[in-house]
């Protein structure tokens, strides 16, 4: 999953738009939030985990918001949405 985060960050650093970056491990969530899963992990059957990030293009910052398992998904998305909402207010 961190490998996936690294790839995504490198792509953004290369000047790409978040919408341009496509891969099986990237899931689009509301408010521009992206969730990365563990696809590509070398472990045979890793626990389904998701890492929630928000690319803030204006300030060139990739916010790593939270991480959780598939069962915590709803709560994690709410947390991420709240975070992005606060960020946009500020």
């Amino acid at each position, binding site marked *: 999953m961190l*490998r996936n*985060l690294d*790839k995504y960050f*490198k792509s953004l650093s290369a000047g*790409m738009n978040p919408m341009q970056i496509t891969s*099986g491990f990237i899931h689009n969530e509301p408010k521009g939030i992206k969730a990365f899963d563990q696809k590509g992990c070398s472990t045979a059957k890793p626990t389904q985990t998701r890492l929630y990030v928000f*690319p803030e293009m204006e300030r060139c*910052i*990739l916010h*790593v918001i939270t991480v959780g398992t598939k069962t915590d998904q709803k709560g994690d998305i709410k947390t991420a949405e709240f975070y992005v909402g606060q960020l946009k207010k500020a």
Partner: protein
Amino acid sequence: MRKVVQQGGNMSKRFGSVSDMMKDLNDGSAQAEAIQKDLKRSQISSILFVMRNKQNLTQGQMAEKLGWSQSKVSKMEHQEDTHYSVSEITDYCSALGYNLEIGFSLKSETWLDKVKRHYTHMHRYLNKISDSAQGDAAIQKGVNQVMIEASGNLLHLVEVCIGKVKKPPKSPTSLIVSRPEVPDEDYAQSVSGTKVKVT
């Protein structure tokens, strides 16, 4: 994108890379080292991933171009560096319009060595461009334009370098305070017109 920010409660920290972020999260632990190694082992996959996305291609479209399955493209973008064959990378690059260049550098190479190496390369390439005209006026016109553009870029680089030179702080100089000079009697008279007695 220049920074990755990691949130922890009300605290947030900024890092220049995911690797730096992991270093900070698990300071010195075996897990942190394992993650660092893992990121280092998958550098080729990151490059291939960035290259494909830069061309706005999905893995499916890339697979079509290569005549591969989509799962093979996905594997190429996730596997560790030691698992690649040169021909696979060459095919992948070629489909995206790139040549594969392999370079070697000493493990002991410093950033300064890298700058010097690139300077030498730039010098050589500019000479090659300059030589390419071979008396042809049309090509020479293009060469001139290239040289003007290169000069601009190099001047910008010089400007950046000079901007990064930090002046040492000024050392404090002692202020010498001396007794004021007492004007002589004649001078005082010539200025004021009256005789002033200087004691």
